[in-house]
C-alpha cells in the first residue's frame, strides 16, 4: 500500500466521519442533545483529527482540535447546548469539510483561525490547554478503529485485574510487531504478571523459524478501564487470538453455548437480551449489531482481518459482551476469540467497502443475464412447449431467480439519500448568510434508498431548488413576523418510495409563488401570450420554462443564469419528473419523482410502424382498444379519445417519431393511456401490445447522442435493439403545439 493509497483511505474515512458528524449535529438540532449522539459527533471529529495528524495536515489538525474541544464542553454538560453554539458548530462543519477538501486536492486550506477563535470564545476554551493535548492527537492516529479510551463515560469500575490471553499469529510478526511492546505498554497501565505458554512449542527439529508458537497470559492489575487495555492491542486486531477477561467477575447469569450464541447474533431480537449484560461494564461496545441475513455481502464481515482463520465457522463479527463471550469462547474456538476485541460503534449493520466499478461490472453482467434469459425464453417459446412443460417451468424458476438476483445486486448499489440531504443543510446556511434570511432545514425519510447513479444526479437540481426555496420562497424575517409567521422559515426535505419510484419533496413555508408576477414575466419574455387562459397550476409551472427568472435583481444566490428549466432538464435526464404546487402566503411544494435505478425498468413492449418500442410500465395507466364512437376530431388534425368523460389527446406514436404517416383509421390500433408529467395524460396509439418484460437500460448517448422523444435503448430477447420512449417528452411536445392547447382547454 503506497502512501497515496493510505491517504485515499483516510479521505474516504473522512467522508464517512463527516457524514456521521453532520447527521449527529442535525439530530441534536432537531431532537435536542443526547449523550450518544454527542459522543458520536465527538468521535467523528476526533478520528478526523487523529488521521490528519498522521499525515501532517496541520491546518486540519488544529481546527479539528478546537472543534473537538468545543464538542467536549457539550459532552461534559449537555445543557451547554444553545442555538448560537449549534449554529457555530454547523458552520464549523462546513469549514472542516472545506479544509478536508483542500487537503485532499493538495491546495492551500482557507484561513480557519477566525472561526476557531469564535469557537474558543463561545465555548470558553482556553488556548493554553490545547498545546499538550495537541501532541497526543498527533500520536493516536486512528481513522478506522476509533480510540474508545476517550469515550469512557466515567462509570467504569476501577481497580480491577484483567486476564489477557494473547496468542500472536505469524502475521503479527510479519508486520513488525513485537510482543514485548505490548508487555511494556501494559505495564504502564498497572502491575503486570506475565506467563509465557510454551505448550505450543514443537521439537527443535520440527520447528520452523517463521512460525509463531508462543502464547502469553498477562494479568494486569490496573485502575484503568478495559478500553485502555483494548487500546494497547488496537493495532494487532486480527493478527492474534486475544481474549480479555475481568478477573473475579462471575458470568454465571448465562449459560451460553455455541448454538445460543450464534442464534443470538444472527437474530435481531435476541440482541436485546444480551444488551443489559454489558451495559454495566462498557457503554460503547454494547451496540449489538447483527448482519441482516438477506444482505448479500454482509457475511463477509469487516475487511480488516488479514488472516482470518474463521473460514469454517460463520464469520462472527460482533460479540454481545465480553463476559458472555468468554464463556462461549471455550466452545467457539480461538478464531472467534481473536475478534472479541473488535469494537462496534453505533452502526446499524456491518459494511464493507467495495470499489464502485466492481459493482457496476456486476450490474452490467446482470443486465447481460437478463437479456440472455429473454433470448432463452423466446427460443423456448418458439419451440412450442406447453405452459406446464418441465422446460417452461424450469424457465419460470430461472426467471424468478434472476429477478431476485437482480434486486439483490441493485440493493448493493442502493444508497440512502442522506448524504445529499445533509449537504443541503449547508446550502441553506450559505443562502441564509448571503440573503440575511433565516431558514431551517428539516429532513424526513433521509434513509430512503435509491441507486447511486440517481443520487449522483440528484445533488445539482436539489441544490438549485433549495437555493430557490430560500431565495425566492422564504421571506425576510421582518416580513415573516409581520405576517405572523416565525422569523425563521422552514424548508422541509423529504423522501419516500411510491409505486416503484422515489419521491422527493421540498416544502417551504414561504410566500408561495407570486402568480401575477410570474405571469407578467412570462408574457414579457414571450413564453406565453397575453390572451392565453392559464390555470393557477399552469402559471406555477411556468417557472420551469426556459429562460425564466423572476428575481427583480439577479441575486448572488440563485440568479446564476440557469433557471428552473435546467432543474427540470436534469431531472428528466434521470427519467424523472418535477411538479410544483403553491399556495400564496403559505409556501410552495416542489415534488419530484425519480426511478429507483437507471439500470433496469419494467417495460411494456409494443409494436408500431414495424418497430418494436418500449414504454415504462410505471407511466402506463391503462390500455384499451378504441371504439369508433369514442374518437373526436378537434380542428384540423387533433384527435381526442373520450374515456370515462375525460378527453385525452391521441398521440400517433409512429407519426410522432417520424416512422410513418398519420393513420387514417384510428380504431385499428391499441391505445395506452400514459401519465406524462405536468402535461397530463396522453393516449399513445400503437399497432399492438406485445407484452411486459423487464428490460435493461442502455444509453444511446455513449456512442451516439441524446435523441428527442427517446429515453434510452434496450436489447430484446431476439438480440434486436428496441427504443424506450420518453413518455413525458412526447406528451409535452404534443401539447406545446398551439392547437394542443385547445384540447387541453377542453379536457380541463
Amino acid at each position, binding site marked *: 500500500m503506497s502512501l497515496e493509497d493510505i491517504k485515499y483511505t483516510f479521505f474516504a474515512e473522512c467522508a464517512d466521519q463527516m457524514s456521521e458528524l453532520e447527521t449527529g449535529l442535525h439530530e441534536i438540532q432537531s431532537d435536542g442533545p443526547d449523550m450518544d449522539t454527542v459522543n458520536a459527533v465527538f468521535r467523528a471529529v476526533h478520528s478526523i483529527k487523529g488521521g490528519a495528524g498522521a499525515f501532517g495536515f496541520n491546518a486540519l489538525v488544529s481546527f479539528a482540535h478546537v472543534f473537538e474541544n468545543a464538542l467536549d464542553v457539550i459532552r461534559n454538560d449537555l445543557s451547554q447546548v444553545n442555538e448560537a453554539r449549534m449554529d457555530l458548530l454547523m458552520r464549523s462543519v462546513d469549514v472542516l469539510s472545506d479544509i478536508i477538501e483542500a487537503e485532499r486536492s493538495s491546495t492551500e486550506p482557507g484561513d480557519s483561525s477566525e472561526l476557531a477563535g469564535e469557537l474558543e470564545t463561545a465555548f470558553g476554551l482556553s488556548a493554553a490547554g490545547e498545546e499538550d493535548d495537541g501532541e497526543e492527537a498527533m500520536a493516536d492516529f486512528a481513522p478506522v478503529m476509533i480510540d474508545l479510551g476517550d469515550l469512557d463515560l466515567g462509570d467504569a469500575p476501577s481497580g480491577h485485574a484483567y486476564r489477557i490471553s494473547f496468542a500472536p499469529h505469524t502475521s503479527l510478526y510479519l508486520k513488525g510487531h513485537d510482543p514485548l511492546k505490548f508487555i511494556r505498554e501494559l505495564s504502564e497501565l498497572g502491575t503486570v504478571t506475565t506467563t509465557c505458554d510454551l505448550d505450543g512449542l514443537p521439537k527443535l527439529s520440527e520447528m520452523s523459524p517463521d512460525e509463531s508458537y508462543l502464547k502469553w497470559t498477562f494479568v494486569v492489575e490496573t485502575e484503568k478501564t478495559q478500553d485502555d487495555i483494548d487500546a494497547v492491542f488496537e493495532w494487532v486486531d486480527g493478527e492474534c487470538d486475544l481474549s480479555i477477561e475481568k478477573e473475579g467477575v462471575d458470568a454465571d447469569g448465562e449459560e451460553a453455548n455455541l448454538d445460543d450464541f450464534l442464534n443470538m447474533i444472527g437474530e435481531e431480537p435476541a440482541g436485546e437480551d444480551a444488551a443489559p449484560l454489558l451495559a454495566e461494564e462498557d457503554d460503547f461496545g454494547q451496540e449489538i449489531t447483527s448482519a441482516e441475513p438477506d444482505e448479500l455481502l454482509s457475511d463477509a464481515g469487516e475487511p480488516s482481518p488479514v488472516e482470518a482463520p474463521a473460514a469454517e465457522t460463520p464469520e462472527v463479527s460482533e460479540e454481545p459482551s465480553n463476559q458472555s463471550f468468554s464463556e462461549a469462547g471455550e466452545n467457539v474456538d480461538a478464531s472467534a476469540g481473536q475478534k472479541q476485541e473488535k469494537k462496534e460503534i453505533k452502526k446499524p449493520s456491518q459494511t464493507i467497502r467495495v470499489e464502485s466499478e466492481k459493482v457496476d461490472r456486476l450490474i452490467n453482467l446482470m443486465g447481460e443475464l437478463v437479456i440472455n434469459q429473454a433470448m432463452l425464453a423466446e427460443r423456448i417459446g418458439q419451440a412450442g412447449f406447453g405452459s406446464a412443460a418441465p422446460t417452461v417451468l424450469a424457465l419460470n424458476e430461472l426467471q424468478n431467480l434472476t429477478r431476485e438476483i437482480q434486486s439483490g445486486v441493485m440493493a448493493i448499489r442502493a444508497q440512502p439519500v442522506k448524504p445529499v440531504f445533509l449537504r443541503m443543510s449547508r446550502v441553506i446556511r450559505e443562502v441564509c448568510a448571503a440573503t440575511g434570511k433565516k431558514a431551517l432545514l428539516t429532513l424526513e425519510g433521509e434513509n430512503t434508498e435509491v441507486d447511486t447513479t440517481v443520487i449522483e444526479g440528484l445533488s445539482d437540481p436539489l441544490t438549485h431548488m433549495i437555493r430557490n426555496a430560500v431565495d425566492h420562497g422564504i421571506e425576510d424575517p421582518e416580513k415573516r413576523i409581520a405576517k405572523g409567521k416565525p422569523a425563521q422559515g422552514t424548508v422541509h426535505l423529504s423522501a419516500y418510495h411510491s409505486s416503484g419510484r422515489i419521491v422527493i419533496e421540498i416544502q417551504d413555508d414561504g410566500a408561495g409563488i407570486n402568480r401575477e408576477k410570474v405571469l407578467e414575466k412570462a408574457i414579457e419574455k414571450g413564453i406565453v401570450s397575453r390572451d392565453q387562459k392559464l390555470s393557477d397550476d399552469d402559471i406555477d409551472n411556468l417557472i420551469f420554462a426556459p429562460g425564466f427568472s423572476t428575481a427583480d435583481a439577479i441575486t448572488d444566490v440563485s440568479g446564476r443564469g440557469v433557471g428552473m428549466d435546467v432543474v427540470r432538464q436534469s431531472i428528466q435526464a434521470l427519467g424523472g419528473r418535477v411538479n410544483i404546487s403553491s399556495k400564496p402566503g403559505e409556501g410552495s411544494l416542489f415534488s419530484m419523482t425519480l426511478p429507483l435505478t437507471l439500470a433496469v425498468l419494467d417495460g411494456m413492449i409494443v409494436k408500431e410502424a414495424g418497430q418494436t418500442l418500449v414504454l415504462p410500465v410505471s407511466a402506463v395507466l391503462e390500455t384499451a382498444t378504441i371504439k369508433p364512437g369514442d374518437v373526436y376530431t378537434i380542428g384540423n388534425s387533433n384527435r381526442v379519445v373520450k374515456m370515462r368523460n375525460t378527453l385525452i389527446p391521441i398521440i400517433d406514436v409512429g407519426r410522432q417519431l417520424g*416512422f410513418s404517416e398519420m393513420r387514417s383509421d384510428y380504431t385499428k390500433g391499441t391505445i395506452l393511456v400514459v401519465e406524462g408529467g405536468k402535461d397530463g395524460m396522453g393516449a399513445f396509439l400503437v399497432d399492438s401490445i406485445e407484452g411486459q418484460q423487464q428490460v435493461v437500460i*442502455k444509453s444511446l448517448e455513449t*456512442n*451516439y447522442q441524446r*435523441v*428527442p422523444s427517446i429515453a434510452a*435503448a434496450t*436489447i430484446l430477447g431476439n*438480440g434486436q435493439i428496441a*427504443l424506450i420512449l420518453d413518455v413525458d417528452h412526447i406528451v409535452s411536445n404534443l401539447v406545446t403545439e398551439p392547437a394542443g392547447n385547445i384540447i387541453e382547454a377542453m379536457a380541463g
Partner: protein
Amino acid sequence: MNETEKTQAVDRQEHIAFRVGEQEFCVEITSTREIRGWSQATRIPHSPDYIIGVINLRGSVLPIMDLSARLSMGFSDPSERHVIIVVKVDEQVMGLLVDSVSDILDVGPDDVRAVPERGLSTEKEMFSRVIVFEDRIISEISLEAIMPEVELKAA
C-alpha cells in the same frame, strides 16, 4: 533495427480500404475495432438521414452510418452483402456501412497526396488526404468530420 528502418516503420501506416459505390476509401487501421456483417438495425427517430439506426454489438448500442449517404453518393440498400466497419472516434464507437472491404494498405509518406483544392464540393472536408497506391486512388476518410454534427445534439 537501425535508425532508418525505425523511422520508416513509424512513417508507414496501415489502412483498411473499402468500396462504396464505384470508389475506394480507407481509414487508418488503428481507428478500426472490427469488421462485421450487416444485421437489421433499429431506426432512430429525429436522426439525420445517413444514420440507418442502431444495432446490438455484444450488449452495447452501436449506431450505423450509411457512408454512401453521408458522402452524398446516394442511399444504400443494406443487404447481407454489405459490411460494417466498426470505428472508434474519440470515445464514440460507430459502424460504417460500406459495400465491401477490399484491402489492407501499407501506406508510406510517398503515397500520400493532399486533397485537391478544386473540383470537390462541401464533401472535401470529409477527406483528410488522398492515397495513390499503385494505380488506385483511395480517399482517406476523416472520421472526426463525418461524425454527426454537434448541432443535432441540441435538437
